[in-house]
């Protein structure tokens, strides 16, 4: 763990900038977070990154909190706060301004066009997230099979994701995957 103003400033700059490109939400930003945090800055190893994703999914709250875990890893409690606020603050301010400008009921066709244009991009990003995480995390055949099985199960049924996550933890603990 490195600490000091340099890493806090670096966390703030990294996540503040990244949030502005996070279309489609936190899960769509996972490949970019991985690229910057693991490949560029070497703040986390592949395994730590996969663990952070797992812990964020197990915790209540928005999916974006994976950056809280990364921030803690880099610079402790202060790092966790700085990373979270940098990832959420600038875009929250932008959302406030845009919603004020657009007003309550705008009849402009542009929001619909922008949305239609961004939906395929954000699905592409989310699928890329799945691939990047699978390459990062699923190191055994059993793990890859578990991912595939859950994808089919969760796609076809309305099982509560939390039970599936717990089942995955139990299987991992038991050494099955």
């Amino acid at each position, binding site marked *: 763990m490195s600490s000091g103003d340099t890493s806090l400033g670096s966390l703030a700059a990294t996540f503040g*900038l990244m*949030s*502005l*490109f*996070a279309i489609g*939400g936190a*899960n769509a930003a996972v*490949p970019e977070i991985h690229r910057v945090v693991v490949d560029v800055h070497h703040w986390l190893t592949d395994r*730590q990154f996969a*663990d952070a994703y*797992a*812990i964020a*999914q197990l915790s*209540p*709250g*928005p*999916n974006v909190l994976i950056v*809280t*875990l990364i921030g*803690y*890893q880099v610079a402790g*409690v202060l790092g966790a706060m700085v990373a*979270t606020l940098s990832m*959420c603050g600038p*875009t929250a301010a932008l*959302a406030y301004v845009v*919603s004020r400008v*657009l007003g*309550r009921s705008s009849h402009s066709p542009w929001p619909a*066009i*922008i*949305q239609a*244009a961004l*939906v395929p*991009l954000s*699905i592409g*990003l989310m*699928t*890329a*997230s*799945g691939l990047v*995480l*699978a390459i990062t*995390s699923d190191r055994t055949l059993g793990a890859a099979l*578990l*991912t*595939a099985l*859950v*994808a*089919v199960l*969760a*796609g076809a049924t309305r099982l509560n*994701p*939390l039970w*599936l*996550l717990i089942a*995955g*933890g139990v299987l*991992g*603990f038991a050494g099955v995957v």
Partner: protein
Amino acid sequence: MPVVGRGPPFYSFAMARDPSAALADDDAPPAPRPELGELFIAFAKMSLAGFGGVLVWARRGIVEKHRWMTADEFNETFALCHFLPGPNIVNLSVVFGSRFRGIPGALAAFTGLLAPPVLIVTALAALYAHYGEIDALRRTLAGVASVAIGLLFAVSFKMLLPLLRKRDPLAIALLIAVFVAIGVLRLPLPMVLSVMVPLSMVSTYLMRRRAS
């Protein structure tokens, strides 16, 4: 994060409410305005209930439980937050809070949504920093990660289905291009988006104009 489900229950609920309420001016929202404390607590509850995503709980809390918005208003607000950059649900908290109580309302909802889970996650991060090397914990988290990745694929697939049903070749091509650029080639996101967003906007606009 799943897209807004536009299921019939929400619409029938919306229609059951006074239709003129939605047309009222800015100072008269359809339900009693939530207080700052109410905003904080409501968003904290939604957030703490939200394992694997808060959107479902936000809809339940705002539309069904508190009736602060109709389903239509909620969908409209969420659509706005979905196309803006940043975590959608965080954007939603700010837009929602400010609509009722201005900037203090935005801060109350934002803090309610983030503060409690951030405290929990920070505690977990501290535990992980101490015990992360224990083999049993590593195996357990690896199992959880495998499942979480499967869940992410399932969500992506559910979002993909409407595009496949519409047989929209343009959208599919854009989707695949982004997937390859980011997932396979691992190009930087700002670079990819600076090409793909304008491309997608222009082609969507042209397609719509040709269709109408």
